């Protein structure tokens, strides 16, 4: 009875095709999975206004307000002295600051002393550093780890967010086109 069944050419063709299709489907998802990075989460803050905030300035008196970050493209960089990866991008940030790019540092969940020591050791590329002791601004911007960097437009919109260590290649690939496109 089974021979009779399998000799039907239509079913035979279909029976061969099905495992092949299943294989190709699984292969597609496997290959796709290789290039997925579960920690690259799409940011919800991109395209929105920078949330209102007012933070104490780390080195000195006074506060830094979100309204002051306007008029030109600015980077907001979340860092902390306990963050080992932050050291790795510091060299790049120092170079970037020399080109005139304004960088605002947000010292994330840190102690004032440790943060100041860290800046003395690794260099300070920041125009201003605000201290986000409780991590409240971090939560408002959807930060889930340091370092994390936001590009703010002259109008005060969040244009782009990059979680992780910045370097020249990422800067040229992700940040520069966004600045140049808007300026044209």
């Amino acid at each position, binding site marked *: *009875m089974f021979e009779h069944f399998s000799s039907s050419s239509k079913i035979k063709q279909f029976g061969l095709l099905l495992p092949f299709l299943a294989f190709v489907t699984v292969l597609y998802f496997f290959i796709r999975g290789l290039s997925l990075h579960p920690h690259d989460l*799409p940011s919800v803050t991109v395209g929105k206004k920078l949330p209102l905030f007012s933070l104490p300035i780390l080195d000195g008196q006074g506060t830094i307000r979100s309204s002051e970050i306007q008029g030109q493209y600015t980077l907001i960089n979340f860092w902390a002295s306990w963050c080992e990866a932050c050291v790795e991008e510091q060299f790049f940030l120092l170079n970037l600051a020399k080109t005139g790019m304004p960088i605002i540092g947000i010292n994330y969940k840190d102690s004032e002393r440790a943060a100041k020591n860290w800046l003395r050791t690794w260099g300070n590329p920041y125009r201003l550093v605000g201290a986000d002791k409780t991590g409240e601004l971090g939560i408002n911007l959807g930060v889930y780890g340091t370092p994390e960097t936001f590009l703010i437009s002259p109008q005060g919109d969040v244009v782009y967010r990059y979680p992780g260590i910045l370097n020249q290649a990422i800067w040229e690939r992700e940040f520069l086109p966004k600045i140049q496109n808007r300026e044209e």
Partner: protein
Amino acid sequence: MRYFLMIIISLLAFNLQANTAQISVDSQRYETLLKELRCLVCQNQDLLDSHAPLALDLQALVLKQMQAGKTDIEIKDYLVQRYGEFILFKPPVTPLTYLLWFGPGLLLALSIVSLCIWSYRRKHYE
């Protein structure tokens, strides 16, 4: 020494209990809500389970909002606006997630139908 240790431990236990008693507005609701939220640092853990610094902050935030009288939906909305729908373990039903929600049922229906056809045909060949 033994007595001393016992006293310390009981004091600690008492302290812990006092803390949780003070915090819990409705611990059942608090824990259920935290279980529905994803820890963004260790992504396969829920917020209740995780001890990552960010998870602890978000726990505190959820607690604060609950104490302020916010509903579960309001708290979830607040977090989704900042971290995206990824923070929800149970994704909402949108066109983007139709396949996720209805795919398994569709597959089941398809397999039942094909099984019926197959056995029907087999019977006829006999």
